[in-house]
Protein backbone atom coordinates (compact mmCIF):
# COMPACT_ATOMS: atom_id res chain seq x y z
CA UNK A 1 0.00 0.00 0.00
CA UNK A 2 2.53 2.55 1.13
CA UNK A 3 5.20 2.28 -1.51
CA UNK A 4 3.97 3.77 -4.74
CA UNK A 5 7.40 4.24 -6.25
CA UNK A 6 8.42 1.69 -8.82
CA UNK A 7 11.91 0.22 -8.57
CA UNK A 8 13.85 1.66 -11.42
CA UNK A 9 16.64 0.25 -13.50
CA UNK A 10 17.91 1.09 -16.93
CA UNK A 11 15.17 0.74 -19.52
CA UNK A 12 12.74 -1.04 -17.26
CA UNK A 13 11.22 -0.90 -13.82
CA UNK A 14 9.25 -2.96 -11.41
CA UNK A 15 5.64 -2.29 -10.43
CA UNK A 16 5.43 -1.33 -6.75
CA UNK A 17 2.27 -3.36 -6.41
CA UNK A 18 2.39 -6.53 -8.52
CA UNK A 19 6.20 -6.55 -8.80
CA UNK A 20 6.03 -7.30 -12.52
CA UNK A 21 8.75 -5.88 -14.74
CA UNK A 22 7.60 -3.10 -17.07
CA UNK A 23 9.53 -1.46 -19.89
CA UNK A 24 10.07 2.20 -19.06
CA UNK A 25 8.68 3.28 -22.39
CA UNK A 26 5.44 1.37 -21.82
CA UNK A 27 5.27 2.71 -18.30
CA UNK A 28 5.63 6.28 -19.50
CA UNK A 29 3.09 5.85 -22.24
CA UNK A 30 0.68 4.34 -19.75
CA UNK A 31 0.97 7.46 -17.53
CA UNK A 32 2.90 5.56 -14.87
CA UNK A 33 0.03 3.13 -14.42
CA UNK A 34 1.07 -0.52 -14.32
CA UNK A 35 -0.21 -2.18 -17.50
CA UNK A 36 -0.59 -5.45 -15.60
CA UNK A 37 -2.35 -4.60 -12.34
CA UNK A 38 -3.52 -1.03 -12.98
CA UNK A 39 -1.56 0.29 -10.03
CA UNK A 40 -1.33 4.09 -10.21
CA UNK A 41 2.23 5.09 -9.33
CA UNK A 42 2.86 8.55 -8.00
CA UNK A 43 3.57 11.35 -10.44
CA UNK A 44 5.82 14.36 -10.22
CA UNK A 45 4.11 17.73 -10.46
CA UNK A 46 5.60 18.39 -13.88
CA UNK A 47 4.46 15.03 -15.24
CA UNK A 48 0.98 15.59 -13.83
CA UNK A 49 0.76 18.97 -15.48
CA UNK A 50 2.01 17.55 -18.75
CA UNK A 51 -0.59 14.78 -18.93
CA UNK A 52 -3.51 16.85 -17.66
CA UNK A 53 -3.48 20.28 -19.24
CA UNK A 54 -3.24 21.51 -22.81
CA UNK A 55 0.29 21.09 -24.14
CA UNK A 56 2.44 24.10 -23.42
CA UNK A 57 -0.38 25.95 -21.69
CA UNK A 58 1.05 25.87 -18.18
CA UNK A 59 2.60 29.03 -16.86
CA UNK A 60 4.11 28.69 -13.43
CA UNK A 61 3.57 31.41 -10.82
CA UNK A 62 4.69 31.85 -7.23
CA UNK A 63 7.86 29.86 -7.80
CA UNK A 64 9.83 32.57 -6.02
CA UNK A 65 8.20 31.64 -2.69
CA UNK A 66 10.42 29.63 -0.39
CA UNK A 67 10.18 28.32 3.14
CA UNK A 68 11.87 29.81 6.16
CA UNK A 69 12.42 28.19 9.51
CA UNK A 70 10.46 30.56 11.74
CA UNK A 71 10.37 28.17 14.72
CA UNK A 72 14.04 27.31 14.38
CA UNK A 73 12.77 23.76 14.37
CA UNK A 74 15.40 21.03 14.84
CA UNK A 75 16.74 19.57 11.59
CA UNK A 76 14.17 21.48 9.50
CA UNK A 77 16.64 23.69 7.67
CA UNK A 78 18.68 20.68 6.63
CA UNK A 79 15.69 18.65 5.48
CA UNK A 80 14.40 21.59 3.54
CA UNK A 81 17.73 22.29 1.87
CA UNK A 82 18.10 18.69 0.90
CA UNK A 83 14.57 18.55 -0.58
CA UNK A 84 15.14 21.76 -2.50
CA UNK A 85 18.37 20.46 -3.89
CA UNK A 86 17.06 17.03 -4.73
CA UNK A 87 13.77 18.16 -6.29
CA UNK A 88 15.12 21.37 -7.81
CA UNK A 89 12.10 23.31 -6.61
CA UNK A 90 11.22 25.42 -3.59
CA UNK A 91 8.17 23.53 -2.45
CA UNK A 92 6.02 20.47 -3.02
CA UNK A 93 3.33 22.65 -4.54
CA UNK A 94 3.55 23.93 -8.08
CA UNK A 95 0.99 26.59 -8.91
CA UNK A 96 0.07 28.66 -11.90
CA UNK A 97 -2.25 29.04 -14.87
CA UNK A 98 -3.08 26.50 -17.54
CA UNK A 99 -5.72 25.65 -20.10
CA UNK A 100 -8.00 22.65 -20.30
CA UNK A 101 -9.31 22.10 -23.78
CA UNK A 102 -8.88 25.81 -24.29
CA UNK A 103 -10.56 26.88 -21.04
CA UNK A 104 -8.27 28.89 -18.78
CA UNK A 105 -7.92 27.33 -15.32
CA UNK A 106 -6.02 28.14 -12.13
CA UNK A 107 -4.05 25.14 -11.00
CA UNK A 108 -1.95 23.81 -8.15
CA UNK A 109 -0.30 20.42 -8.19
CA UNK A 110 1.34 18.76 -5.24
CA UNK A 111 4.37 16.52 -5.46
CA UNK A 112 4.65 13.97 -2.69
CA UNK A 113 8.39 13.60 -3.27
CA UNK A 114 9.08 16.99 -1.77
CA UNK A 115 8.90 16.44 2.00
CA UNK A 116 5.83 14.26 1.69
CA UNK A 117 3.87 17.10 0.13
CA UNK A 118 3.46 18.57 3.58
CA UNK A 119 1.62 21.87 3.95
CA UNK A 120 3.73 24.64 5.40
CA UNK A 121 3.32 28.35 4.86
CA UNK A 122 4.56 28.32 1.25
CA UNK A 123 2.34 25.41 0.35
CA UNK A 124 -0.68 27.05 1.95
CA UNK A 125 0.11 30.36 0.31
CA UNK A 126 0.27 28.77 -3.14
CA UNK A 127 -3.07 26.99 -2.62
CA UNK A 128 -4.59 30.23 -1.37
CA UNK A 129 -3.24 32.26 -4.28
CA UNK A 130 -4.51 29.64 -6.72
CA UNK A 131 -8.01 29.80 -5.26
CA UNK A 132 -7.89 33.59 -5.09
CA UNK A 133 -6.83 33.77 -8.72
CA UNK A 134 -9.85 31.61 -9.52
CA UNK A 135 -12.15 33.80 -7.44
CA UNK A 136 -10.76 36.95 -9.02
CA UNK A 137 -10.78 35.75 -12.61
CA UNK A 138 -13.85 33.54 -12.52
CA UNK A 139 -11.83 30.72 -14.04
CA UNK A 140 -12.18 27.31 -12.37
CA UNK A 141 -9.58 26.13 -9.86
CA UNK A 142 -8.15 22.65 -10.17
CA UNK A 143 -5.98 21.28 -7.38
CA UNK A 144 -4.19 17.94 -7.39
CA UNK A 145 -3.62 16.89 -3.78
CA UNK A 146 -0.78 14.68 -2.59
CA UNK A 147 0.22 15.26 0.98
CA UNK A 148 0.82 13.59 4.30
CA UNK A 149 -0.72 16.60 6.04
CA UNK A 150 0.46 19.76 7.74
CA UNK A 151 4.19 20.44 8.03
CA UNK A 152 4.84 20.10 11.75
CA UNK A 153 8.18 21.87 11.49
CA UNK A 154 6.29 25.12 11.01
CA UNK A 155 4.10 24.50 14.04
CA UNK A 156 0.98 26.55 14.50
CA UNK A 157 1.80 28.52 11.36
CA UNK A 158 1.14 25.29 9.46
CA UNK A 159 -2.10 24.60 11.27
CA UNK A 160 -3.30 28.06 10.30
CA UNK A 161 -2.83 27.15 6.61
CA UNK A 162 -5.84 24.86 7.05
CA UNK A 163 -7.98 27.88 7.85
CA UNK A 164 -6.35 30.14 5.27
CA UNK A 165 -6.78 27.74 2.35
CA UNK A 166 -10.33 26.78 3.35
CA UNK A 167 -11.25 30.45 3.56
CA UNK A 168 -10.03 30.91 0.00
CA UNK A 169 -12.12 27.95 -1.14
CA UNK A 170 -15.13 29.53 0.55
CA UNK A 171 -14.51 32.68 -1.50
CA UNK A 172 -14.72 30.68 -4.73
CA UNK A 173 -17.90 29.01 -3.57
CA UNK A 174 -19.49 32.30 -2.63
CA UNK A 175 -18.70 33.74 -6.04
CA UNK A 176 -19.91 30.67 -7.93
CA UNK A 177 -16.46 29.85 -9.24
CA UNK A 178 -15.98 26.08 -9.45
CA UNK A 179 -13.15 24.37 -7.63
CA UNK A 180 -12.26 20.79 -8.42
CA UNK A 181 -9.96 18.69 -6.25
CA UNK A 182 -8.26 15.50 -7.30
CA UNK A 183 -7.03 13.24 -4.53
CA UNK A 184 -3.91 11.45 -5.62
CA UNK A 185 -1.90 9.16 -3.42
CA UNK A 186 -1.81 10.10 -0.53
CA UNK A 187 -4.25 12.83 0.55
CA UNK A 188 -4.13 12.92 4.31
CA UNK A 189 -4.67 14.69 7.62
CA UNK A 190 -4.49 18.47 7.61
CA UNK A 191 -4.83 18.69 3.85
CA UNK A 192 -7.80 16.33 3.72
CA UNK A 193 -9.34 18.14 6.70
CA UNK A 194 -9.14 21.53 5.00
CA UNK A 195 -9.18 22.78 1.42
CA UNK A 196 -9.20 19.31 -0.15
CA UNK A 197 -12.57 18.27 1.28
CA UNK A 198 -14.51 21.44 0.49
CA UNK A 199 -14.11 21.32 -3.28
CA UNK A 200 -17.27 21.40 -5.36
CA UNK A 201 -16.37 18.14 -7.01
CA UNK A 202 -13.86 15.68 -5.63
CA UNK A 203 -12.25 13.09 -7.88
CA UNK A 204 -9.69 10.54 -6.77
CA UNK A 205 -7.23 8.21 -8.40
CA UNK A 206 -7.84 4.49 -7.86
CA UNK A 207 -6.49 3.14 -4.57
CA UNK A 208 -5.11 6.52 -3.49
CA UNK A 209 -4.62 6.65 0.27
CA UNK A 210 -7.21 9.05 1.68
CA UNK A 211 -7.54 9.52 5.42
CA UNK A 212 -7.32 11.60 8.54
CA UNK A 213 -4.73 9.81 10.65
CA UNK A 214 -2.13 7.15 10.10
CA UNK A 215 -3.49 3.64 10.15
CA UNK A 216 -1.77 2.90 13.45
CA UNK A 217 -3.45 5.87 15.10
CA UNK A 218 -6.84 4.96 13.67
CA UNK A 219 -6.52 1.44 14.98
CA UNK A 220 -5.51 2.67 18.43
CA UNK A 221 -8.34 5.19 18.53
CA UNK A 222 -11.12 2.96 17.33
CA UNK A 223 -12.67 -0.20 18.61
CA UNK A 224 -14.24 -1.27 15.32
CA UNK A 225 -12.81 -3.71 12.81
CA UNK A 226 -10.65 -2.13 10.16
CA UNK A 227 -12.12 -2.77 6.70
CA UNK A 228 -9.79 -4.11 4.01
CA UNK A 229 -10.09 -1.00 1.88
CA UNK A 230 -9.79 1.39 4.85
CA UNK A 231 -8.51 4.83 3.88
CA UNK A 232 -8.50 4.17 0.15
CA UNK A 233 -10.23 6.27 -2.49
CA UNK A 234 -12.74 3.45 -2.84
CA UNK A 235 -13.51 3.53 0.88
CA UNK A 236 -13.99 7.29 0.70
CA UNK A 237 -16.33 6.84 -2.27
CA UNK A 238 -18.33 4.19 -0.46
CA UNK A 239 -18.63 6.53 2.50
CA UNK A 240 -19.92 9.43 0.47
CA UNK A 241 -16.78 11.55 0.77
CA UNK A 242 -15.81 11.83 -2.88
CA UNK A 243 -17.70 11.99 -6.15
CA UNK A 244 -15.84 9.59 -8.37
CA UNK A 245 -12.81 7.37 -8.59
CA UNK A 246 -11.35 8.20 -11.99
CA UNK A 247 -8.56 6.24 -13.68
CA UNK A 248 -5.65 8.45 -14.62
CA UNK A 249 -6.17 8.09 -18.34
CA UNK A 250 -9.73 9.44 -18.03
CA UNK A 251 -8.88 12.28 -15.65
CA UNK A 252 -8.28 14.96 -18.25
CA UNK A 253 -11.50 14.17 -20.10
CA UNK A 254 -13.52 14.17 -16.88
CA UNK A 255 -12.08 17.50 -15.80
CA UNK A 256 -12.87 18.96 -19.21
CA UNK A 257 -16.49 17.80 -18.98
CA UNK A 258 -16.90 19.23 -15.50
CA UNK A 259 -15.19 22.48 -16.37
CA UNK A 260 -17.40 23.00 -19.39
CA UNK A 261 -20.61 22.29 -17.49
CA UNK A 262 -19.97 23.98 -14.16
CA UNK A 263 -17.68 26.77 -15.26
CA UNK A 264 -19.95 28.36 -17.80
CA UNK A 265 -21.89 30.78 -15.64
CA UNK A 266 -19.71 33.36 -13.97
CA UNK A 267 -21.66 35.32 -11.40
CA UNK A 268 -18.84 37.68 -10.53
CA UNK A 269 -17.58 40.54 -12.63
Amino acid sequence: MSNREPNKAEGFLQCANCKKIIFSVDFEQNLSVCPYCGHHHRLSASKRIEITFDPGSFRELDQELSSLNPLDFPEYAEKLASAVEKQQTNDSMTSGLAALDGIPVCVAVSDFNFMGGSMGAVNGEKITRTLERAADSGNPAIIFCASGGARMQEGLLSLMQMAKTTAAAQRCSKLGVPYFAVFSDPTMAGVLASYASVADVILAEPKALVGFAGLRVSKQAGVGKVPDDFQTAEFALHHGMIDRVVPRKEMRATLIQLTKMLGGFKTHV
Partner: protein
Amino acid sequence: MSKTHKEWERPLKELEDALLKLKELNRREQDPATKERRESQISGFEARRDRYVEVMYANLGPWEKVLVARADNRPYTLDYVQAICHNFVELQGDRNGFTDHAIVGGPAMIDGRPVMVVGHQKGRSIQERQLRNFGYARPEGYRKAIRLFEMAERFRLPVITFIDTPGADAGVEAESRGISEAIAASIFKMFELTVPSISVIIGEGGSGGAIGIAASNKVLMLEHSIYSVIAPEGCASILWRQADRGADAAKALKLTAQCALDFDLIDAIIPEPKGGAHRDWPTICANVKAEILSHLAELDTKSPATINQDRYDRFRRMGVFNDGLQP
Protein backbone atom coordinates in the same frame (compact mmCIF):
# COMPACT_ATOMS: atom_id res chain seq x y z
CA MET B 1 10.06 14.77 33.34
CA SER B 2 6.54 14.64 34.72
CA LYS B 3 3.96 12.99 32.51
CA THR B 4 0.86 14.47 34.04
CA HIS B 5 -0.19 17.60 35.78
CA LYS B 6 -0.92 15.62 38.93
CA GLU B 7 2.60 14.20 38.95
CA TRP B 8 4.12 17.59 38.33
CA GLU B 9 2.12 19.23 41.12
CA ARG B 10 2.77 16.38 43.58
CA PRO B 11 5.20 18.31 45.84
CA LEU B 12 2.68 21.11 46.02
CA LYS B 13 -0.08 18.65 46.72
CA GLU B 14 1.94 17.17 49.60
CA LEU B 15 2.44 20.63 51.05
CA GLU B 16 -1.26 21.38 50.74
CA ASP B 17 -2.19 18.06 52.30
CA ALA B 18 0.11 18.75 55.25
CA LEU B 19 -1.44 22.19 55.62
CA LEU B 20 -4.90 20.69 55.65
CA LYS B 21 -3.94 18.20 58.32
CA LEU B 22 -2.36 20.91 60.44
CA LYS B 23 -5.45 23.06 60.20
CA GLU B 24 -7.69 20.16 61.13
CA LEU B 25 -5.45 19.39 64.11
CA ASN B 26 -5.63 22.97 65.29
CA ARG B 27 -9.38 23.12 64.88
CA ARG B 28 -9.65 20.45 67.56
CA GLU B 29 -6.82 21.83 69.69
CA GLN B 30 -7.90 22.86 73.22
CA ASP B 31 -4.72 24.38 74.52
CA PRO B 32 -4.59 28.07 73.50
CA ALA B 33 -0.81 28.25 73.56
CA THR B 34 -0.36 25.26 71.27
CA LYS B 35 -3.11 26.61 69.07
CA GLU B 36 -1.37 29.92 68.70
CA ARG B 37 1.98 28.37 68.06
CA ARG B 38 0.53 26.11 65.44
CA GLU B 39 -1.33 29.01 63.88
CA SER B 40 1.91 30.76 63.11
CA GLN B 41 3.28 27.46 61.84
CA ILE B 42 0.30 27.28 59.47
CA SER B 43 0.91 30.80 58.28
CA GLY B 44 4.48 29.88 57.53
CA PHE B 45 3.36 26.84 55.58
CA GLU B 46 0.86 28.94 53.66
CA ALA B 47 3.48 31.46 52.76
CA ARG B 48 5.72 28.64 51.65
CA ARG B 49 2.87 27.18 49.57
CA ASP B 50 2.20 30.54 47.96
CA ARG B 51 5.85 31.05 47.12
CA TYR B 52 6.01 27.54 45.78
CA VAL B 53 3.00 28.11 43.53
CA GLU B 54 4.46 31.37 42.42
CA VAL B 55 7.80 29.87 41.54
CA MET B 56 6.29 26.84 39.83
CA TYR B 57 3.99 28.93 37.66
CA ALA B 58 6.25 31.93 37.18
CA ASN B 59 8.18 30.50 34.31
CA LEU B 60 6.34 27.53 33.01
CA GLY B 61 8.25 25.73 30.29
CA PRO B 62 6.37 24.54 27.21
CA TRP B 63 6.00 21.02 28.59
CA GLU B 64 4.68 22.26 31.91
CA LYS B 65 2.18 24.34 29.96
CA VAL B 66 1.09 21.13 28.23
CA LEU B 67 0.57 19.50 31.62
CA VAL B 68 -1.32 22.46 33.04
CA ALA B 69 -3.43 22.83 29.89
CA ARG B 70 -4.50 19.22 30.29
CA ALA B 71 -5.18 19.40 34.05
CA ASP B 72 -8.53 17.83 34.77
CA ASN B 73 -9.42 20.32 37.45
CA ARG B 74 -9.14 23.19 34.99
CA PRO B 75 -12.51 24.66 34.06
CA TYR B 76 -14.00 23.12 30.94
CA THR B 77 -16.33 24.70 28.40
CA LEU B 78 -19.54 24.08 30.33
CA ASP B 79 -17.89 25.44 33.49
CA TYR B 80 -17.24 28.71 31.67
CA VAL B 81 -20.71 28.76 30.15
CA GLN B 82 -22.26 28.21 33.55
CA ALA B 83 -20.14 30.92 35.12
CA ILE B 84 -20.30 33.65 32.50
CA CYS B 85 -23.64 33.01 30.73
CA HIS B 86 -27.17 32.43 31.78
CA ASN B 87 -30.14 30.87 30.00
CA PHE B 88 -27.92 28.38 28.14
CA VAL B 89 -30.09 25.92 26.20
CA GLU B 90 -27.99 23.07 24.92
CA LEU B 91 -29.04 21.98 21.43
CA GLN B 92 -28.10 18.61 20.11
CA GLY B 93 -27.74 16.54 17.00
CA ASP B 94 -26.19 16.77 13.57
CA ARG B 95 -29.57 16.09 11.86
CA ASN B 96 -27.77 13.37 9.97
CA GLY B 97 -28.15 10.34 12.19
CA PHE B 98 -25.61 10.94 14.92
CA THR B 99 -24.92 12.83 18.06
CA ASP B 100 -21.68 13.80 19.75
CA HIS B 101 -21.02 14.96 23.29
CA ALA B 102 -17.40 16.02 22.81
CA ILE B 103 -18.70 19.22 21.27
CA VAL B 104 -21.54 21.04 23.00
CA GLY B 105 -23.43 24.15 22.02
CA GLY B 106 -26.52 26.26 22.01
CA PRO B 107 -27.77 29.78 22.54
CA ALA B 108 -27.04 31.55 25.81
CA MET B 109 -27.14 35.06 27.23
CA ILE B 110 -23.98 36.93 28.17
CA ASP B 111 -24.22 40.34 29.74
CA GLY B 112 -27.87 40.50 28.73
CA ARG B 113 -27.39 39.66 25.07
CA PRO B 114 -27.87 36.37 23.24
CA VAL B 115 -24.87 34.58 21.72
CA MET B 116 -24.30 31.16 20.23
CA VAL B 117 -21.87 29.11 22.27
CA VAL B 118 -20.00 26.11 20.84
CA GLY B 119 -17.15 24.29 22.48
CA HIS B 120 -15.25 21.10 23.05
CA GLN B 121 -16.25 19.40 26.25
CA LYS B 122 -14.10 17.03 28.27
CA GLY B 123 -15.38 14.92 31.13
CA ARG B 124 -14.15 14.48 34.68
CA SER B 125 -15.75 11.30 36.00
CA ILE B 126 -15.02 8.05 34.22
CA GLN B 127 -18.57 7.93 32.87
CA GLU B 128 -18.46 11.50 31.65
CA ARG B 129 -15.06 11.01 30.06
CA GLN B 130 -16.50 8.14 28.08
CA LEU B 131 -19.60 10.13 27.18
CA ARG B 132 -17.37 12.97 25.99
CA ASN B 133 -15.05 10.56 24.16
CA PHE B 134 -12.17 12.05 26.19
CA GLY B 135 -12.62 15.30 24.33
CA TYR B 136 -11.96 13.79 20.91
CA ALA B 137 -14.82 15.16 18.82
CA ARG B 138 -16.44 13.02 16.17
CA PRO B 139 -17.70 14.12 12.74
CA GLU B 140 -21.20 14.65 14.17
CA GLY B 141 -19.77 17.12 16.67
CA TYR B 142 -18.48 19.35 13.89
CA ARG B 143 -21.72 18.90 11.94
CA LYS B 144 -23.69 19.99 14.99
CA ALA B 145 -21.37 22.98 15.24
CA ILE B 146 -22.09 23.82 11.60
CA ARG B 147 -25.82 23.69 12.29
CA LEU B 148 -25.40 26.02 15.25
CA PHE B 149 -23.19 28.40 13.25
CA GLU B 150 -25.93 28.55 10.60
CA MET B 151 -28.49 29.26 13.29
CA ALA B 152 -26.29 32.02 14.69
CA GLU B 153 -26.04 33.59 11.25
CA ARG B 154 -29.78 33.32 10.67
CA PHE B 155 -30.66 34.96 13.97
CA ARG B 156 -27.70 37.34 14.05
CA LEU B 157 -26.08 35.97 17.20
CA PRO B 158 -22.34 36.41 17.74
CA VAL B 159 -20.53 33.07 17.95
CA ILE B 160 -18.31 32.22 20.93
CA THR B 161 -16.31 29.01 20.73
CA PHE B 162 -14.27 27.36 23.46
CA ILE B 163 -11.39 25.20 22.32
CA ASP B 164 -10.26 22.29 24.46
CA THR B 165 -9.42 19.05 22.69
CA PRO B 166 -6.42 16.77 22.37
CA GLY B 167 -7.47 16.37 18.73
CA ALA B 168 -10.36 15.03 16.67
CA ASP B 169 -11.39 11.38 16.85
CA ALA B 170 -9.21 9.45 14.42
CA GLY B 171 -10.85 6.04 14.86
CA VAL B 172 -12.23 3.81 12.15
CA GLU B 173 -15.82 4.92 12.74
CA ALA B 174 -14.96 8.60 12.74
CA GLU B 175 -12.99 8.08 9.54
CA SER B 176 -15.86 6.24 7.89
CA ARG B 177 -18.23 9.10 8.67
CA GLY B 178 -15.77 11.62 7.29
CA ILE B 179 -14.00 13.32 10.20
CA SER B 180 -11.80 15.24 7.76
CA GLU B 181 -14.75 16.51 5.76
CA ALA B 182 -16.58 17.50 8.92
CA ILE B 183 -13.65 19.58 10.17
CA ALA B 184 -13.11 21.18 6.77
CA ALA B 185 -16.81 21.97 6.38
CA SER B 186 -16.90 23.53 9.83
CA ILE B 187 -13.95 25.81 9.05
CA PHE B 188 -15.60 26.63 5.73
CA LYS B 189 -18.87 27.51 7.47
CA MET B 190 -17.11 29.78 9.96
CA PHE B 191 -15.74 31.82 7.06
CA GLU B 192 -19.27 32.24 5.70
CA LEU B 193 -20.44 33.98 8.85
CA THR B 194 -21.21 37.68 8.82
CA VAL B 195 -21.86 37.70 12.57
CA PRO B 196 -18.84 38.27 14.83
CA SER B 197 -17.02 35.22 16.13
CA ILE B 198 -14.61 34.84 19.01
CA SER B 199 -12.67 31.72 19.96
CA VAL B 200 -11.05 31.12 23.31
CA ILE B 201 -8.42 28.41 23.68
CA ILE B 202 -9.07 27.37 27.27
CA GLY B 203 -6.92 24.25 27.51
CA GLU B 204 -5.64 22.07 24.73
CA GLY B 205 -5.84 23.45 21.21
CA GLY B 206 -5.10 20.15 19.50
CA SER B 207 -4.44 20.36 15.74
CA GLY B 208 -7.25 19.94 13.20
CA GLY B 209 -9.76 19.17 15.90
CA ALA B 210 -9.11 22.60 17.38
CA ILE B 211 -9.00 24.76 14.24
CA GLY B 212 -12.25 23.06 13.19
CA ILE B 213 -14.15 25.46 15.45
CA ALA B 214 -11.54 28.19 15.86
CA ALA B 215 -11.68 30.13 12.59
CA SER B 216 -12.93 33.29 14.26
CA ASN B 217 -12.55 37.05 14.08
CA LYS B 218 -10.74 37.04 17.37
CA VAL B 219 -8.77 34.18 18.87
CA LEU B 220 -7.79 34.44 22.52
CA MET B 221 -5.63 32.07 24.49
CA LEU B 222 -5.52 31.47 28.20
CA GLU B 223 -2.07 32.11 29.60
CA HIS B 224 -1.30 28.44 30.16
CA SER B 225 -3.26 26.93 27.32
CA ILE B 226 -1.53 25.41 24.31
CA TYR B 227 -2.24 25.46 20.58
CA SER B 228 -0.36 23.08 18.36
CA VAL B 229 -0.28 21.53 14.91
CA ILE B 230 0.37 18.13 16.47
CA ALA B 231 0.42 16.64 19.96
CA PRO B 232 3.99 16.86 21.29
CA GLU B 233 4.08 13.10 21.95
CA GLY B 234 3.02 12.43 18.35
CA CYS B 235 5.61 14.86 17.08
CA ALA B 236 8.35 13.23 19.15
CA SER B 237 7.32 9.84 17.96
CA ILE B 238 7.56 10.91 14.32
CA LEU B 239 10.73 12.98 14.68
CA TRP B 240 12.78 10.87 17.02
CA ARG B 241 10.69 7.69 17.26
CA GLN B 242 10.52 8.39 20.99
CA ALA B 243 7.04 9.32 22.18
CA ASP B 244 8.46 10.05 25.64
CA ARG B 245 10.42 13.01 24.34
CA GLY B 246 7.24 15.08 24.45
CA ALA B 247 8.97 17.82 26.40
CA ASP B 248 11.55 18.32 23.65
CA ALA B 249 8.83 18.35 21.03
CA ALA B 250 6.74 20.80 23.05
CA LYS B 251 9.70 23.15 23.04
CA ALA B 252 10.32 22.74 19.33
CA LEU B 253 6.65 23.22 18.42
CA LYS B 254 6.39 26.61 20.12
CA LEU B 255 2.90 25.76 21.30
CA THR B 256 2.50 28.37 24.04
CA ALA B 257 0.21 31.38 24.05
CA GLN B 258 3.20 33.69 24.08
CA CYS B 259 4.64 32.12 20.92
CA ALA B 260 1.25 32.26 19.20
CA LEU B 261 1.04 35.94 20.07
CA ASP B 262 4.61 36.57 18.92
CA PHE B 263 3.73 35.08 15.53
CA ASP B 264 0.59 37.21 15.46
CA LEU B 265 -1.64 34.16 15.30
CA ILE B 266 -3.81 35.14 18.24
CA ASP B 267 -5.21 38.45 19.40
CA ALA B 268 -4.68 38.37 23.13
CA ILE B 269 -3.55 36.30 26.06
CA ILE B 270 -6.01 36.02 28.94
CA PRO B 271 -4.01 36.06 32.18
CA GLU B 272 -4.60 33.17 34.55
CA PRO B 273 -4.73 33.58 38.31
CA LYS B 274 -1.64 32.69 40.26
CA GLY B 275 -1.11 28.95 40.14
CA GLY B 276 -3.26 28.48 37.07
CA ALA B 277 -6.93 28.59 36.10
CA HIS B 278 -7.67 25.43 38.07
CA ARG B 279 -6.71 27.11 41.34
CA ASP B 280 -9.24 29.90 41.04
CA TRP B 281 -12.25 29.33 38.83
CA PRO B 282 -14.06 32.58 39.68
CA THR B 283 -11.08 34.70 38.70
CA ILE B 284 -10.37 32.99 35.40
CA CYS B 285 -14.08 32.99 34.52
CA ALA B 286 -14.24 36.71 35.24
CA ASN B 287 -11.15 37.31 33.12
CA VAL B 288 -12.55 35.28 30.24
CA LYS B 289 -15.88 37.05 30.42
CA ALA B 290 -14.26 40.46 30.45
CA GLU B 291 -12.06 39.61 27.45
CA ILE B 292 -15.00 38.23 25.47
CA LEU B 293 -17.13 41.27 26.19
CA SER B 294 -14.37 43.67 25.32
CA HIS B 295 -13.73 41.99 21.96
CA LEU B 296 -17.44 41.69 21.29
CA ALA B 297 -17.82 45.40 21.88
CA GLU B 298 -15.10 46.08 19.35
CA LEU B 299 -16.66 43.76 16.78
CA ASP B 300 -20.11 45.26 17.36
CA THR B 301 -18.99 48.43 15.65
CA LYS B 302 -18.39 46.64 12.35
CA SER B 303 -20.79 45.86 9.52
CA PRO B 304 -21.59 42.24 8.62
CA ALA B 305 -19.54 42.52 5.42
CA THR B 306 -16.58 43.92 7.33
CA ILE B 307 -16.84 41.19 9.95
CA ASN B 308 -16.63 38.60 7.18
CA GLN B 309 -13.80 40.36 5.33
CA ASP B 310 -11.81 41.00 8.51
CA ARG B 311 -11.94 37.33 9.39
CA TYR B 312 -10.68 36.43 5.95
CA ASP B 313 -7.88 38.98 6.15
CA ARG B 314 -6.93 37.81 9.63
CA PHE B 315 -6.12 34.30 8.46
CA ARG B 316 -4.94 35.41 5.04
CA ARG B 317 -1.90 37.04 6.60
CA MET B 318 -0.75 33.92 8.43
CA GLY B 319 2.40 32.20 7.35
CA VAL B 320 6.06 33.14 7.44
CA PHE B 321 8.00 32.62 4.23
CA ASN B 322 10.43 34.23 1.88
CA ASP B 323 8.39 35.89 -0.85
CA GLY B 324 11.43 36.22 -3.09
CA LEU B 325 10.92 39.93 -3.42
CA GLN B 326 13.77 41.11 -1.25
CA PRO B 327 17.05 39.37 -2.00
